[in-house]
């Protein structure tokens, strides 16, 4: 799919060609805004519900069971376009993954675009095209949307907010507090790819690498896992704060401890090298297509086998256990047989010199 996200495939119909960049008028509520919606957003994101352009979408839910997963997320990534993706697909997959972590099937998204005056129309086109392709990949519909334009200097080009609705099958019971002592901890694949892809193009830190963001939708992987066993107790999308934050949040919610073997964490050599170079711990680096699962130990084999059968879970590894010791705390067993506390990250991840 990613190969198709080429700006050359996107043609901008008149009269938008008159404006190679976003101007304040595109947020005015008038003709220009209407043009933007009709010539940019509807052709790329439209469907029966969205095309009505009502104040709110009306959705028929009769065919679905009743538990609803509902999640919102705002995307402020800089740069907008990075190795392996752009803010468009990130905004779709981010919310899709948040829904998927409840075991839900994601169905509907809202899309709020906050555009900065001066944003090249071509960039917006490229990003919206990626957004549209991501919706198709994740099989979700954008059913309501909003566009605002802010003055030059008041935004990083483009912010996107998405809110998603998904439906949870009746038999699924996944929640952060469901972990039990004796459960095992699984990571779905290599960690730190997204964060290091972004670092590689950040001003002042640039380096040459083939690291690309892992941005991808995880709901199918979750579906595959649930088909193997319903004894999946917790799922967590290991985004900001990385696997370390995900494990800490799970330990805290369940009031149990987690121990894992550091050497088992899957890590691409280039990501490892980049982390060494900048003095960062890959456990704290962001992912956009990796989950941490806490699973009843008796079904660990089946769940792992199911994950391995899916392209996004190919590198899944059992890394550790849930224990009744040290509640709320995460301990790593190190490569030399020592251990250390893996704490919640304090703030922004910074390169260090010492």
């Amino acid at each position, binding site marked *: 799919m990613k190969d198709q996200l080429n700006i050359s495939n996107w043609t901008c119909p008149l009269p938008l060609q008159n404006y190679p960049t976003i101007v304040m008028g595109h947020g005015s509520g008038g003709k220009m805004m209407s043009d933007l919606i009709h010539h940019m957003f509807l052709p790329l994101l439209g469907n029966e519900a969205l095309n009505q352009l009502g104040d709110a979408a009306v959705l028929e839910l009769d065919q679905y069971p009743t538990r609803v997963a509902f999640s919102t997320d705002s995307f402020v990534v800089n740069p907008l376009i990075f190795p392996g993706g752009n803010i468009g697909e990130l905004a779709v997959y981010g919310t899709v993954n948040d829904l998927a972590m409840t075991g839900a099937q994601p169905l509907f998204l809202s899309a709020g675009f906050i555009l900065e005056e001066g944003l090249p129309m071509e960039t917006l086109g490229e990003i919206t095209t990626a957004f549209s392709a991501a919706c198709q990949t994740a099989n979700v519909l954008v059913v309501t949307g909003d566009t605002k334009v802010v003055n030059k200097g008041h935004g990083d080009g483009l912010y996107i907010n998405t809110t998603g609705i998904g439906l949870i099958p009746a038999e699924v019971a996944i929640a952060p507090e469901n972990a039990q002592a004796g459960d095992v901890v699984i990571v779905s694949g290599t960690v730190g790819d997204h964060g290091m892809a972004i670092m*590689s193009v950040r001003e002042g830190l640039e380096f040459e690498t083939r690291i690309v963001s892992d941005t991808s939708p995880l709901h199918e992987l979750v579906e595959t896992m649930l088909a193997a066993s319903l004894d999946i107790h917790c799922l967590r999308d290991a985004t900001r704060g990385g696997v370390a934050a995900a494990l800490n949040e799970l330990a805290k919610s369940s009031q149990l401890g987690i121990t894992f073997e550091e050497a088992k964490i899957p890590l691409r*050599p280039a990501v*490892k*090298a*980049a982390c060494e*170079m900048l003095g960062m711990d890959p456990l704290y680096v962001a992912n956009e297509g990796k989950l941490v699962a806490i699973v009843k130990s008796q079904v660990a084999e089946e769940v792992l086998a199911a994950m391995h059968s899916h392209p996004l879970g190919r590198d899944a590894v059992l890394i550790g256990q849930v224990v009744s010791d040290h509640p709320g705390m995460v301990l790593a067993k190190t490569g030399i047989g020592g251990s250390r506390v893996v704490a919640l990250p304090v703030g922004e991840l910074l390169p*260090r*010199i*010492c």
Partner: protein
Amino acid sequence: MCLGIPGKVVEIYQANDMKMGKVDFGGVIKEACLEFLPDIQVGEYTIIHVGFGISQLDEEEAQRTLEMLREMEMLADELPELDQGLQV
């Protein structure tokens, strides 16, 4: 105090009258200043700190140290009873 990571010099050039180069850290390539390493050649290893090569890594010495330590290990492995006896 000072994060220094070994990398392999893959390119050397002059810029602003400084010896500069590209250094490969296992698949990640970063520009570095090699001005303090007048003898270093492409293919050799250096330790990089804040974008500067601070030493030309002595690869023979690195090999010797490891061999010496591994031999020490083998010596101990040959005497498993003694090793265990001492731990008790």
